[in-house]
């Protein structure tokens, strides 16, 4: 691929990085966000991790928060995220990213802390950490990649695998009569009082990618503004473990994933007219005297 070109006014860091490739009069249309390192993604063709990693980095750049951002990488295909992001990064144990993020955020409340997690990590082994960080209203941003399968370990059934979906550990298809139903995280978390914002997005088209970026930006902005816990669920692809071409994987996503995991905003306390999650929680419990104690303070 030829070197990308952008409008000539480049921030210093981009001049440092690619300045030597720019000839006078040339323009660059798309440069690598500063919040990404020069490391090459190790994601498979057609995998949406790369897109979302980049969107997160663009948002960090645009909000100018790289210097105070600390990211938590999970166990799963995005385990190497600590190599990809230019901000400080911590590698967490499987499922524990929200607890690790809690520790960081409590020590440095002014830092921007995000956890980047897949479905096995967030919705299976880390369910307790996920639910409790959310209900505590930790002022963190969680990016949840839901591709309905365990990618890194080679395609096992995930908590979000669809009914009848064939995986390595559901070779006859996910039998809901014996293993139950997929966990719908956006819906589940939207019931918790500590949550400020939950939106489900996808990355199957330019329009959806732009919408995903807006959601991610809002989830980070909420944290900066102290609004409360924010989570963006990204309905994602795993062509390799779905056994499909990238093209077919996106078709399958549109055909099967999106009807089961409808896109949209599941909770947004600001849009509902509240300043933050705490205010919304207080309003919801308006008939509970003990919950209203100290309201005037």
């Amino acid at each position, binding site marked *: 691929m030829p070197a990308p070109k952008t409008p000539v006014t480049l921030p210093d860091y981009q001049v440092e990085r690619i300045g030597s490739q720019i000839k006078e009069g040339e323009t660059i249309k798309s440069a690598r966000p500063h919040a990404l390192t020069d490391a090459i993604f190790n994601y498979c063709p057609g995998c949406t991790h790369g897109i979302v990693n980049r969107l997160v980095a663009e948002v960090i750049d645009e909000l100018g928060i790289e210097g105070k951002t600390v990211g938590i990488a999970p166990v799963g295909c995005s385990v190497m995220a600590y190599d990809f992001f230019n901000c400080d990064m911590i590698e*967490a144990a499987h499922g524990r990213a929200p607890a690790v993020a809690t520790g960081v955020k409590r020590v440095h409340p002014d830092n921007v802390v995000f956890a980047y997690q897949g479905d096995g990590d967030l919705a299976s082994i880390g369910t307790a950490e996920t639910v409790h960080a959310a209900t505590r209203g930790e002022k963190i941003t969680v990016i949840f990649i839901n591709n309905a399968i365990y990618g890194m370990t080679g395609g096992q059934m995930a908590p979000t695998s669809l009914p009848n979906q064939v995986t390595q550990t559901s070779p006859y298809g996910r039998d809901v009569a014996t293993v139950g139903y997929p966990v719908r995280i956006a819906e589940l978390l939207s019931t918790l009082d500590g949550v400020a914002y939950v939106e489900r997005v996808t990355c199957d088209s330019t329009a959806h990618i732009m919408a995903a970026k807006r959601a991610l930006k809002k989830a980070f902005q909420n944290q900066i503004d102290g609004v409360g816990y924010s989570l963006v669920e990204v309905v994602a692809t795993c062509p390799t473990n779905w056994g499909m071409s990238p093209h077919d994987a996106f078709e399958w996503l549109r055909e099967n994933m999106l009807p089961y995991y409808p896109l949209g905003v599941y909770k947004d306390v600001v849009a509902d007219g509240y300043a933050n999650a705490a205010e919304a929680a207080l309003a919801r419990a308006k008939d509970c005297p003990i919950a209203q104690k100290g309201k005037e303070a």
Partner: protein
Amino acid sequence: MAENNQGAERVLMKGNEVLAEAAMRAGCRFFFGYPITPQTELAAYMAKKLPLCGGTFLQAESEVAAINMVYGAAAAGARVMTSSSSPGVSLKGEGVSYMAGADVPGVIVNVERGGPGLGGIQPSQSDYFQATRALGHGDFYMPVLAPSTVQEMADLIYLAFDLADEYRTPAMILADGMIGQMMEPVTLPPARDPETLPKKPWATTGTRMEREHNVVNSLYLSPNKLEDTNFERFERYAQIKETQQRQELLLCDDAEIVVVAFGASSRIARTAVREARAKGIKAGLLRPITLWPFPTKAVDQVIANGAKQFLSVELNMGQMVEDVRLAANGRAEVSFYGRTGGVLPTPEEVLAQIEKLANGEASGVLPRPVDCPSSNERGE
């Protein structure tokens, strides 16, 4: 009650509360834990006091979450701790392994109770193996300090934070329900000036766009890199073994029979040793303060002084005795006496064992080492 941010002071306090107060004086401002008997006073004290000095107490949803919050806070550069008791400490094993693997300092308190399983809630030392061998998967150790008095609860947790920071490792206080629950006079250490705490340039505090990004991580997909990392860590372990062995020796200058005991059991053994001396038996007490590193140099010393026999006295079925045997390495006989399940031996029981050894008889034989009635015979 003792207040934080003060100089040294003498007070009467409960062991568990002293752990909390001394930790705060050592500069700990973050506590993450989950309720379990018999360490609850520690968490309750933290819940009450930490917010008053600008700290954070957070009751986590589980022990697993608590230790991972510790990992996060430690990665962010804070002095941080968690506390639990045996069954809860098992759950912390995962996080402790990650802390060791990522070279992240933090303090873990185990106020032990009887096991295995849910076990009981009475004092025990049955987590010696877990603490000194592997509190989690992988190649690692951590400093393990064993207080035997309420004073040592203060002194050793203060030390634990320093060791953790100096060697970038988790460190453990291995106490037991007896030391945790009892009250004794204690001189509390002065509060550390936060400015004197070690700097942590490796911490994930945000780059401020002034440095390369820091990564706190225990994953190495290259076997050679992982091996290098482990080699480097074991060099630090070698330094710890060389410089940090701690113990108390009582009447060991001419002792022929040396009782080895730590924590609660050492208090009982101390009485038995004195009684043995009164009977003319050349007995002494070697009390390990560091369980890891085990005080092997002290074992060498008492053997050089003429020790012929060691008697390891523990509140378990025989765990530290293996370290005594390794340290003695065939140069002296090693016997064991222990009670378990939360039962404490009497000084007379221990004295009887010392007398047996002095008379050339074999010490106790497991599994029921003395003529003690079973719970059935007691009518329980």
